C-alpha cells in the first residue's frame, strides 16, 4: 500500500499530468495517420524528452506507444488501411463491418477491446511486480549477457523467411556500436582517423535515420491516395463494452497472450495477435465469420496488441534489455538521466516502476474518454496527403537529429541511414534488428567482459540456475528454428516436385536426352569409335 501511495505521489505533478495528456492525445493522432507510426514519433521526440524528468519523458513516450494502436484502428476499420503496422489484423474483421454499415459498432468494439487489453496487462504487471522484484536480483552479468543474446536470437528468428538477412543486419548493428573509442583499453575501433567517428555512432541518429527520415523518403516518393471516409453509423460508440462482456474468454485469453508475448524480447504484437486470432477462430461457434466482420476476431486482434506495451516494459525495466525498437529508444531516456534500468531499479526504485504502470493505467482511461468524444473529428486526419506528410516528417526529423548535439555530421549520418532505411523498406527487409543489434550488442560487450572476469572456463558461464535455464532456452530456440528450416525445406522440395512438369517441357526433354546420350550412349560410342580408330591405325 505504501508502495502504491509513493508511486501516486511521483505522478502528482502538473508536468506529469500534461505529459499524460500530450502522450495520449498525440499517440492517438499519430496512430490515426497512416504512414506515421509510433516509432517515427518517438524517434523525433526522443531528444526533446532528454531535458525532462525521467518520469515525464517516459510518460510521453509510453503514452505515444500505448495509445497509437487505439488511433491505428480508426483507419484500419474505416478505410481498410492500418494506421500502425500492428493494426493490420484489425482490417480483416473491422473493414467488413464498416462495409456492411456498422462502422460505429466496429470502432466501439476496437476501443473497448484495446482498453480491456491495456488495463488487463497493467493490472497483471502491477500484481506481478513483487515477483519480478524477487527474480530480477538473480540476474548477474552472465545472466544479462545470456538474456541479451537470447533477445537478439529471438529477433532474428522471428523474421521468418528473412532470418539470414535479419541476422546479418543485427550483426551490422553490433558492428556499429563498436565504432569509436573503446572504453576499457582506450583504443580506436574503425574510426579511420576521423574525429567525428571517435565518439561513436549515436543510437538516436541511427534510429531517426532508419525510422523517421526513411519514412519521410517513402512518403515523398509515393503518390497521394484518394481517401473516401465513411460516415459514422450503425450502433453507438458505447455498445462495444457490452459486446465485449459477452466474450470474456476470448478477451482474457487474448490479453494473456499479449502479456506473455510482450514480455519475450523480439516476439511482440504480431505473434500475440496471430496466436489469439487463431485461438479465437478455433474455439468460435462461427469460425466461418472470421475475416468477414466477426466481432470475436476484432476483439482478439485489438485486445492482444494493446496488452503488449505494458508487458514490453518488463524486460526493459527488470533487466535493462529492450525487446523491440520502441523500448530500445526508451532505454536511451534512462541512460541520459543516469538511471540504469535493471535489477537495481526494482530493488531501489520500485515506486518509480509502479508509477510508470499507474501512468499507463490512467493513460488508457484518458485515451478511451478522448476517443469516445473526438472520433468524428479524428477521422479527418487520415485525409492529410502523403507527400505533405513526408515534408512534415522531414522538417520534424531535423529537430530530432540536430537538437542532439547541434552537429551537422550527425545529420549527414542520419541522412545516410535514412537512405539505408528507405532501401530496406523497398526490399521489405527489417530495420529493427539493426537497432537491437546496437543496443543489445553494447550490453553484451559489457556484460560478457564482466561475466568472464569471474569465471575460469567458458562453461562456468552457465553454472548458475538462471543462466543454465537461459542457456537451455537459447538451445531450444535454435533447435526449433533449425527444425522449422528443415520442415520448410522439405515442404519446398515437395512443392517443387509437384510443380515440376517434366513431360510438358520439350526443351528439357531434349536436354535430358542429350545428357543421357552423352553419359551412357556417348561412353559406348566413344569406346566403339576408339576401338575402330585403333583398328584403323593398326592397319598402318
Amino acid at each position: 500500500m505504501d508502495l502504491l501511495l509513493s508511486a501516486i505521489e511521483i505522478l502528482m505533478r502538473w508536468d506529469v499530468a500534461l505529459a499524460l495528456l500530450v502522450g495520449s492525445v498525440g499517440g492517438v493522432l499519430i496512430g490515426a495517420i497512416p504512414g506515421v507510426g509510433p516509432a517515427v514519433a518517438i524517434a523525433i521526440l526522443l531528444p526533446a524528452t532528454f531535458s525532462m524528468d525521467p518520469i515525464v519523458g517516459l510518460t510521453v513516450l509510453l503514452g505515444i506507444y500505448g495509445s497509437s494502436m487505439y488511433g491505428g484502428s480508426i483507419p484500419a476499420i474505416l478505410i481498410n488501411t492500418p494506421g500502425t503496422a500492428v493494426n493490420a489484423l484489425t482490417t480483416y474483421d473491422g473493414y467488413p463491418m464498416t462495409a456492411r454499415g456498422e462502422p460505429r459498432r466496429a470502432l466501439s468494439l476496437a476501443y473497448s477491446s484495446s482498453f480491456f487489453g491495456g488495463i488487463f496487462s497493467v493490472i497483471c504487471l502491477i500484481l506481478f511486480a513483487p515477483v519480478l522484484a524477487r527474480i530480477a536480483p538473480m540476474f548477474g552479468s552472465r545472466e544479462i549477457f545470456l538474456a541479451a543474446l537470447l533477445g537478439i536470437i529471438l529477433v532474428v528468428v522471428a523474421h521468418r523467411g528473412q532470418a539470414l538477412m535479419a541476422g546479418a543486419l543485427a550483426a551490422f548493428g553490433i558492428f556499429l556500436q563498436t565504432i569509436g573509442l573503446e572504453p576499457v583499453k582506450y583504443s580506436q575501433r574503425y574510426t579511420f582517423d576521423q574525429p567525428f567517428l571517435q565518439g561513436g555512432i549515436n543510437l538516436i541518429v541511427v534510429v531517426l535515420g532508419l525510422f523517421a527520415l526513411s519514412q519521410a523518403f517513402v512518403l515523398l516518393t509515393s503518390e497521394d491516395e484518394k481517401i473516401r471516409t465513411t460516415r459514422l453509423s450503425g450502433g453507438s460508440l458505447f455498445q462495444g463494452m457490452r459486446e465485449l462482456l459477452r466474450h470474456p474468454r476470448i478477451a482474457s485469453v487474448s490479453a494473456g497472450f499479449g502479456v506473455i508475448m510482450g514480455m519475450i524480447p523480439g516476439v511482440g504484437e504480431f505473434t500475440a495477435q496471430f496466436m489469439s486470432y487463431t485461438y479465437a477462430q478455433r474455439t468460435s461457434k462461427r469460425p466461418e465469420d472470421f475475416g468477414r466482420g466477426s466481432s470475436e476476431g476484432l476483439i482478439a486482434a485489438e485486445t492482444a496488441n494493446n496488452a503488449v506495451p505494458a508487458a514490453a516494459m518488463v524486460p526493459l525495466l527488470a533487466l535493462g534489455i529492450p525487446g523491440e525498437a520502441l523500448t530500445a529508444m526508451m532505454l536511451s531516456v534512462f541512460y541520459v538521466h543516469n538511471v540504469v534500468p535493471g535489477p537495481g531499479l526494482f530493488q531501489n526504485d520500485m515506486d518509480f516502476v509502479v508509477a510508470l504502470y499507474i501512468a499507463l493505467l490512467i493513460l488508457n482511461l484518458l485515451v478511451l474518454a478522448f476517443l469516445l468524444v473526438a472520433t468524428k473529428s479524428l477521422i479527418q486526419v487520415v485525409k492529410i496527403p502523403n507527400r505533405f506528410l513526408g515534408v512534415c516528417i522531414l522538417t520534424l526529423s531535423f529537430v530530432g537529429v540536430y537538437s542532439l548535439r547541434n552537429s551537422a555530421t550527425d545529420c549527414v549520418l542520419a541522412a545516410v541511414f535514412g537512405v539505408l532505411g528507405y532501401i530496406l523498406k523497398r526490399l521489405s527487409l527489417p530495420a529493427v534488428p539493426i537497432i537491437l543489434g546496437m543496443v543489445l550488442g553494447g550490453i553484451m560487450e559489457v556484460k560478457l567482459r564482466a561475466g568472464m572476469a569471474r569465471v575460469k572456463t567458458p562453461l562456468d558461464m552457465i553454472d548458475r540456475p538462471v543462466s543454465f535455464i537461459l542457456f537451455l532456452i537459447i538451445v531450444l530456440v535454435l533447435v526449433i528454428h533449425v527444425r522449422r528450416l528443415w520442415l520448410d525445406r522439405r515442404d519446398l522440395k515437395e512443392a517443387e516436385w509437384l510443380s515440376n512438369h517434366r513431360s510438358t517441357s520439350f526443351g528439357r526433354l531434349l536436354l535430358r536426352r542429350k545428357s543421357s546420350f552423352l553419359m551412357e550412349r556417348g561412353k559406348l560410342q566413344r569406346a566403339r569409335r576408339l576401338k575402330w580408330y585403333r583398328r584403323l591405325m593398326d592397319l598402318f
Partner: protein
Amino acid sequence: MATERERRFAGPRRGQILFALGFVALSVLLLTQIGSQTRWAERTAFFSQPRFWPAVGLGGMVLLGGLHLKRLPWRRFTTADRAELRRWASVLEYAVWFLVYVLLVPLLGYLPVTLIFVPLLAWRMGYRSRFMMVVSLVFAVAVVVLFKSFLGVKIPGGAVYEYLPGGLRSFFILNL
C-alpha cells in the same frame, strides 16, 4: 514462369541482388581492415579484446550476408534492378534538401529557414494552392514555437540574429 523458390521468397525481387551484393562487399571490405582498425591488447583475455566484438559483428555480416546472397533465387541483374537503383538514387534529392536545411539553420536562424523550407518543399511536391501554402507556413511556425520556444530544445540561433538590436537579439536567439 517463377519457380517455387522465387514464389516463396519474402519480399519483392527488384533490387534484392544489388543490396545483397553491396552489403557483402562492404562487409568484406570492412573485415579486411580489422587488423589496422582495431588493436590486439597484450595480457588481455580473449573475450575482452577490443577486436573481439567488431570481429563478431563483421564476421556475422559476412557469413550471414554471404549465405543470404547464396540462397537468393536469382543470379543476374534485370531491368527491374536497374530501375530500382534509379529509384534509390531519386531519394538522394530529398536527402540533399534535408542537408541544405541543416546547413542553413545556423546561418539564417531556425524560424526563417523553416518558414522558407516547408513551403518550398511543399511547392516542389506539387502542393501549390494558396491553402496548402498557408498550411505549410502555419506548420513551420508551429514546429518552431513548439520545439524551440515551448520545449526548449537546443537549436542555436542564426548568425544573422547578431545584427538585430539588443533586446530583440536575445529574444530571437532564445526562442526562434
